[in-house]
């Protein structure tokens, strides 16, 4: 069962553009985490959101957790080539999941920012 759906799957934009990627689920999570993964490396945590409606900012990145704690979005302002990578959302503590508090990952959004 695919608990977390991420969209779009691929995104190619030019430097300076804004973008939003989405992470949706029918499950309620105790928290959602966003990671960024570069080729040949492990995922690196960007942010954890815990409270429904929570908004967190990390420089040009803005993360929002849905009020019902089922979905999240990542907005990047004025994207730069260094933002290129695979953005993964991961949910913990899904009520419908049999994996307890283990993190379940979405498939990710592959972002390419060209100069």
């Amino acid at each position, binding site marked *: 069962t695919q608990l977390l759906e991420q969209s779009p799957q691929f995104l190619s934009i030019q430097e300076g553009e804004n973008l939003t990627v989405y992470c949706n689920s029918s499950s309620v999570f105790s928290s959602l985490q966003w990671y960024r993964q570069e080729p040949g490396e492990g995922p690196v945590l960007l942010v*954890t959101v815990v409270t429904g409606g929570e908004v967190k900012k990390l420089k040009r990145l803005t993360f929002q957790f849905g009020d019902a704690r089922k979905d999240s979005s990542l907005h990047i302002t004025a994207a730069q080539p260094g933002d290129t990578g695979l953005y993964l959302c991961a949910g913990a503590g899904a009520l419908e999941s049999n994996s307890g508090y*283990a993190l379940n*990952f979405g498939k990710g959004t592959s972002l390419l920012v060209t100069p």
Partner: protein
Amino acid sequence: EPEVTQTPSHQVTQMGQEVILRCVPISNHLYFYWYRQILGQKVEFLVSFYNNEISEKSEIFDDQFSVERPDGSNFTLKIRSTKLEDSAMYFCASSTWIYNSPLHFGNGTRLTVT
């Protein structure tokens, strides 16, 4: 900054052989994990480990898999009789706590089963 280290970075093995993937988690972390990522697919949870025993495991983690913390620093994943479909990137991770705690991942071991 402390990091999770994994060895080897790439392992090639023949079908039916046993492999052991090694990880050194961050020293003050208490929870340890193995995830895998088949090429082009999502990162999948295999197992979590705390206080020298498995705390959770997924359906993927069947009898061919086992984990061990043989000493105070290493955390290993053993695959007893490898199959072609075990080819994947295997990531070790550690965290200070299980609830809403960020995971620190290693750079993975690419396992190729021929």
